[in-house]
């Protein structure tokens, strides 16, 4: 009997004990009707081949292990960035359970959202009653300052009209007439979670800006985009903006909502952009989007209001941070202080110290389009080569912009851009054109297992490592963190490759 109270064996060691191994073998042989081992091994080898890669890349309909989620997830994340704002997702309820779980698993934090719980009868008659009753209940139970409504597939397919439904519910007294219920249609069969983010932010801005008169002022708006590292990033950017003395408003800021303290009180709501701030954001001099592909519609709308606009691609690393700060300086008229130049210098110092370990390293990078763009750029700043750049939710236009950016840099000369491809495609790419490291999300662990390529977790979702999202990737400080994270993996790999006593450990250097 392997188990004991003294030393309780967890699943990993427990099932490696002989009793269990024997049991697995019997189960397999007697009851599973397994395929011959040789056939399995042949297929393992075949999937590593160029021939399999060609077949795999020729896929037209099947999607396997995609790196994207659906629109309402982005809408729920967006709504979490406003003060005491409850997400209300109109449609079937299972989806909402999924969004909440998904965000909780990444942030290790509560995530609140309600559903209008539509069922079969609502499919036939429409979900108006669900909206009327649902808004009333949400308002009574959760005391929100605003309720942001988005939609699941079900509501979209049957064509429920949010605007009239919400008006109807207000007339029926579900919530007071003047209570803010911004909304966005977020069909899951169009785009991905980043478009859901875009739609919801635009919906919220329209709710507060429509009909209002703009009095152009001097302040600056920042729209972050869907960001699993919002906790660390937003706080770091605010620190920089404060150092510069810029007057600014984050439009959507989930940093506090997804990082509430443990002190005995559960805060269902924390932080976020206030309604007053959203209203006065109309008067800002300009608005900067940190993630272009996340905010295309929103930024068009902002530009229509007569504001200056600028967009970035998840600014991280040296040049992107430079450009971001200079743009802020340009719009706000505030200079970049010496303290920030020092921070920059420290990042450059660190990069110079470690450049020998990074130069020429090949990477596969995947994630949302803006992130991939940013990370490819940073990798090139360290002398690395972004060999495979993949975004399942990247468009053709993204692909061509990426190609232009890479072609302009000698380190990007051999880079390939994969828009609309998934992580099963990437598996073939890694076997046929291997790289040294991958940068992506937790989903990459399966690729690490299959191809042996070490995974560096730097983008949403990260389920199997804790707390990284609490630290920034943006700003020069963030750059330092990205750099260190990559280096840790480089050194861990080097050690792992030189750790066999008497065989490889002549290179097991104390100082590297």
């Amino acid at each position, binding site marked *: 009997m*392997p188990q004991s*109270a003294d030393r*309780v*064996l967890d*699943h990993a060691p*427990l*099932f490696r004990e002989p009793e269990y191994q024997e049991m697995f073998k019997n189960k397999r042989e007697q*009851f*599973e*009707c397994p*395929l011959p081992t040789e*056939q*399995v091994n042949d*297929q393992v080898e075949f999937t590593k081949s160029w021939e*399999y890669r060609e*077949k*795999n890349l020729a*896929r037209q*309909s*099947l*999607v396997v*292990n*995609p790196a*994207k*989620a659906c629109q*309402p997830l982005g809408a729920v994340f967006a709504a979490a960035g406003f003060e005491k704002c409850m997400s209300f997702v109109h*449609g079937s*309820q*299972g*989806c909402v*359970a*999924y969004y909440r*779980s*998904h965000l909780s698993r990444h942030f290790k*934090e*509560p995530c609140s959202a309600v*559903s*209008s719980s*539509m*069922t*079969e009868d609502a*499919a036939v008659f429409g979900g108006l009653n669900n*909206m009327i009753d649902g808004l009333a*209940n*949400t308002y009574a*139970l959760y005391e929100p300052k605003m309720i942001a409504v988005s939609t699941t*597939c*079900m509501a979209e*397919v*049957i064509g429920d009209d949010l605007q009239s439904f919400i008006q109807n519910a207000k007339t029926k007294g579900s919530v007071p007439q003047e209570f803010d219920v911004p909304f966005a249609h977020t069909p*899951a*069969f*169009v785009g*991905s979670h980043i478009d859901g983010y875009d739609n919801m932010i635009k919906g919220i801005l329209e709710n507060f800006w429509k009909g209002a008169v703009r009095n152009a002022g001097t302040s600056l708006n920042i729209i972050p985009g869907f960001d699993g590292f919002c906790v660390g990033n937003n706080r770091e950017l605010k620190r920089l903006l404060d150092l510069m003395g810029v007057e600014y408003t984050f439009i959507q800021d989930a940093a506090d909502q997804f990082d*509430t303290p*443990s*002190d*005995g009180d*559960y805060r269902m709501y924390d932080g976020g952009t206030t309604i007053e701030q959203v209203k006065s954001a109309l008067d800002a001099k300009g608005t900067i989007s940190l993630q272009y592909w996340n905010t295309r519609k929103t930024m068009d709308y902002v530009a229509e209001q007569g504001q200056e606009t600028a967009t970035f691609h998840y600014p991280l690393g040296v040049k992107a941070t430079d450009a971001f700060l200079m743009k802020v300086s340009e719009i706000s008229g505030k200079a970049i202080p010496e303290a920030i130049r020092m921070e920059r210098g420290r990042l450059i110092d660190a990069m110079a110290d470690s450049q020998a370990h990074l130069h020429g390293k090949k990477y596969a990078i995947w994630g949302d389009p803006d992130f991939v763009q940013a990370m490819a750029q940073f990798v090139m700043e360290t002398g690395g080569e972004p060999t495979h750049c993949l975004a399942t939710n990247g468009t053709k236009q993204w692909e061509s912009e990426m190609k232009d950016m890479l072609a302009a840099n000698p380190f990007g000369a051999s880079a390939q851009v994969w828009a609309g491809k998934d992580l*099963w495609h990437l598996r073939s790419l890694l076997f046929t054109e291997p790289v040294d490291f991958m940068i992506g999300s937790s989903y990459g662990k399966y690729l690490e297992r299959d191809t042996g390529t070490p995974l560096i977790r730097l983008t949403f979702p990260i389920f199997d490592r804790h707390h990284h999202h609490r630290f920034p990737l943006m700003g020069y400080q963030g750059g330092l963190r990205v750099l260190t994270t990559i280096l840790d993996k480089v050194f861990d790999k080097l050690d792992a490759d030189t750790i066999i006593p008497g065989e490889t450990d002549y290179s097991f250097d104390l100082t590297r």
Partner: protein
Amino acid sequence: MSLDYENDGELHGKLIEEVLAQYPDKFAKRRKKHLSVASDAGTEEIEGAERPVTECDVKSNIKSIPGVMTVRGCAYAGSKGVVWGPIKDMVHISHGPVGCGQYSWSQRRNYYIGKTGIDTFVTMQFTSDFQERDIVFGGDKKLEKIIDEIEDLFPLANGISVQSECPIGLIGDDIEAVSKKKAKEHDTTIVPVRCEGFRGVSQSLGHHIANDAIRDWVFDKKTREVETTPYDVNVIGDYNIGGDAWASRILLEEMGLRVVGNWSGDATLAEVENAVHAKLNLIHCYRSMNYICRHMEEKYGIPWMEYNFFGPSQIAMSLRKIAKHYGPEIEEKAEAVIAKYQPLVDAVIAKYGPRLKGKSVMLYVGGLRPRHVVNAYEDLGMQIAGTGYEFAHNDDYQRTGHYVKKGTLIYDDVTGYELEKFIEAIRPDLVGSGIKEKYPVQKMGIPFRQMHSWDYSGPYHGYDGFAIFARDMDLAINNPVWDLFDAPWTKEAPLAAAAE
């Protein structure tokens, strides 16, 4: 197991009134039926059954009310997530837009052995990733293409299931016709499942639909020579979360039974197909798979029996009950198994019992565990203050009466608001529920364990699992972090002392 205690029914009754007061009238009335306090069970004898200890009188399996933050999922989660997803050598297509499959990808911890992507596929996300044109023009053509591509790229898959997401049933696709056509063409098993998320009121109908799909699309479809013995059993409704089914199987084999099929954790399609030749069905998760047991009883004459492998009292009781079905020879072996593990049980209780004794627990889980784990806690001297189900039916609450004590707070399809208020007021020493509940509860300073995923631990079934269960409850409750919540300077200290 015969731990004697009673909960404060009066307080619990008051809490129910308090939470209901917050709802608009119409919905207070509706929610009222789902909340109650366990009362003394009547005294009348029930034929052929043990009398329950208490009565848990709530309404269940009813639509959630809109806008309240139900914890429930949907039929797709019940079918793809629970019943079908763990069958390891099939490809399960999440048919529709990308989301549902993405969020449920690899989240249930159905352990299995195999080469993923080659001969097994559980921890992969296969989606048809519907686009607007698929919604407008229908997705059947795309589904055909997808099946062809699976056959081409994953030739060792032993079958395919099509797990419908919400849009499928709304746009009028005929996935049955596609499945039939393509199954014939590729000479393989293809199972269409109509588990669109809007069907039913929770995961529960998804379980049922998934069971029916096995009946209609798997049973009696292939002829295969199968060796049988009188000791052939199927384990039904064990999803091998963190290895639960393995820690169970080892005991059943030790007592001389032959587990010919495990449904559905670590199962191959062959195990499901061959199940009809077994002599007995042992069902763990009654809620999710009783349907197929009833069918197998009716059609193939296979009797079924519920059992419970959480905690030593229930394990011993279950082993004896199962053995009794076979007679003295197996009974003797069952006793030997119980005796063999008794020292482990004693050691576990000796080690953790003193650290856990008298601690109170509130549970809120799916359709089985809110009752099934009760005695495992009591084996460690812990007490259940409240329990409830996301998607139980009436028969589950009846069964719950055999487990919980008088005064226990019972909550069906609890809302986020209610659960938070209940926990805040009762302040149990431990809460066992899901990922969505974990962080709010912990922030209140109350220890928590996820009781769907075993909080990435497990197994919790069987004797080997009980040791892990006890260790986990101890490490949750007795971690020093819970004492660090208050900053020392905010504690009410005499001002004079502070000034010193």
